């Protein structure tokens, strides 16, 4: 500190001019709610890193199956259970991409040489010889679809239900709240299993099951906020000016609810991703030959002792997705929730 002080120029220490007109000047540009929120998100390093990681994952999920040049369901039993091998990285000894495999008894073998495979399988192959790189990104697509779906259900059904219930109040609110109180007592797991018994297990039944229960939490939060907002003067003013209820809800209430909606959606997404993977893992989710991160982990788990890469790679990807979504959700909550302001 001391050396810094000496370097400061003398004129910095001149007395300030007292001018009443200048002290009233606004010397920072005024920020809208969203600019302010964005600034706060940007300050949160974990959230920014998560955002970058998520963008990369989304790009890879769609680009991955294209650049691998293989189909996700093409079987080639001659190339079964190959370890990962990536051109270029195969010579870096500490990376596990050299196409070699350590057996449980300690011997190191190279299945690529034994089976005379010239091709490179970047993340190896599964017991049916399917390319894991392609399957991994296909599975990531499923997770992203579920994330997108959960967000849409939350934003459409949950917000509409909550806003209508809260805005109109009275008997309608009473009836609607009784329904949610029954629904909230039903665990999602129970509904999903019922749906899957009637429909075929797969992405459709997961979608329907999530539509039935996924929105309840959101509707409660939105209703509570709407109850508070509808008593405020700007709503009364809009009513006095003759605006319809629909217009008031969409034009005046929704923008004020945006913060809560975003926070809630962001916390729903990782739960939905986990749930799909969990269902796939216990055999209720996607069925073969479709790949999701849950089925990949399930298949990999069965051969974990012999071919650890088949489980560890999808496990890393889903963990990264989950951590990224959670961190971003935390960052957004800190930025958007007025109660969290310091």
């Amino acid at each position, binding site marked *: 500190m001391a050396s810094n002080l000496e370097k400061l120029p003398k004129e910095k220490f001149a007395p300030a001019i007292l001018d009443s007109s200048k002290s009233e000047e606004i010397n920072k540009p005024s920020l809208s709610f969203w600019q302010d929120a964005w600034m706060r998100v940007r300050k949160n390093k974990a959230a920014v890193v998560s955002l970058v990681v998520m963008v990369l994952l989304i790009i890879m999920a769609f680009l991955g199956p294209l650049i691998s040049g293989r189909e996700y369901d093409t079987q080639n039993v001659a190339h079964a259970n190959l370890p990962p091998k990536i051109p270029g990285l195969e010579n870096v000894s500490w990376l596990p991409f050299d196409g070699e495999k350590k057996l449980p008894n300690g011997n190191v073998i190279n299945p690529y040489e034994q089976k005379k495979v010239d091709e490179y399988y970047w993340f190896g192959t599964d017991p049916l010889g399917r390319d894991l790189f392609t399957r991994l990104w296909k599975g990531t697509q499923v997770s992203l679809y579920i994330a997108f779906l959960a967000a849409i259900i939350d934003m459409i059904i949950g917000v509409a239900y909550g806003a209508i219930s809260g805005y109109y109040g009275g008997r309608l609110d009473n009836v609607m709240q009784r329904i949610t109180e029954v629904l909230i007592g039903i665990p999602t797991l129970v509904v999903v299993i019922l749906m899957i018994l009637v429909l075929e297990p797969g992405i459709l039944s997961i979608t329907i099951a999530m539509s039935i229960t996924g929105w309840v939490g959101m509707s409660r939060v939105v209703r509570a906020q709407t109850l508070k907002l509808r008593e405020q003067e700007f709503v009364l003013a809009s009513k006095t000016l003759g605006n319809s209820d629909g217009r008031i809800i969409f034009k005046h209430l929704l923008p004020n609810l945006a913060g809560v909606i975003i926070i809630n959606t962001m916390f729903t997404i990782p739960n939905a991703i986990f749930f799909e*993977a969990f269902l796939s893992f216990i055999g209720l989710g996607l069925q073969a030959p479709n790949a999701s991160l849950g089925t990949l982990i399930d298949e990999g788990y069965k051969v974990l*002792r012999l071919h650890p890469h088949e489980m560890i790679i999808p496990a890393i990807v889903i963990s990264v997705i989950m951590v990224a979504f959670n961190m971003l959700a935390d960052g957004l909550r800190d930025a958007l929730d007025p109660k969290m302001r310091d």
Partner: protein
Amino acid sequence: MTRYLVKRILYMLVTLFVIASLTFFLMKLIPGTPFASANKLSPAQMAIMKAKYGLDEPVAVQYVKYLGNLVQGDLGIAFQFGNTPVSDLLANRIGPSIHLGLQAMIIGSIIGMILGVFAALRQNTWVDYSSTFLAVIGKAIPNFVFAGLLQFFVAVKLGWFPVLFWKGPEYTVLPTIALMMFPVAIAARFMRTEMIEILGSDYITLAKAKGASYFDIAFKHALRNALIPLVTVLGPLTASMMTGSLVVERIFAIPGIGEQFVKSISVNDYNVIMGTNLFFAALFVVIILIVDILYGVIDPRIRLAGGKK
């Protein structure tokens, strides 16, 4: 309080009724018959079979009978185990599940609470950051990934604990760790937020002004009030124990309800799936009710706000 209690129990019954009805009518929608050898049966044999299980009666009659059986705890028959009643099957398998669930929930909550309290007391230091990091990891990493990797690295590679089965205390260690990650994460986050809020409140300042020791302030005044809202997370924790038990019991081959459930899914034993499903739903609903009542009983602020006394 009585009025609230009656209202809550009524809701619980409605929820259970809805789930049970939904289960019944969805079951009716499933194509085919519940008999394993349906293709080999002649129409006459089929009629006898249907009459035996009461499937020839009108749906309304079947529905009433079904509800009557449920009230008496009869969940149907498990076809895969030579026609044992599902309720017997559940009764035989509930021991390890409850043992594991309670052990994970209690140890997990205690560890989480300790982490959360120290994170709050040492806010913005490495203690806080590592506790928060652990909480994020515990919440984010799916339990089946964690359980699988734990089994592989700690049991198979290092050989510190048994890999599979449920034969003694040492067999419970890894499943408990795998299952308690979520309670640890939730309790740690919750406790941190609560403690920080309470440490900034007026009565803590008063306690400081009166010269109470740091230890007394943290553990006698702040912690006791921070513990109360922790009861509210018991509901989500129970739900996570249920989903968690499915995968953890499967991975560690523990003879509990969850393992049975996953097996039944793979062999399409509808009665066991339905019965376990109803059991889970009932358990969940009852625990939520108990949590709500408990919350009212232990928090004097809520009791006062309710207008009693």
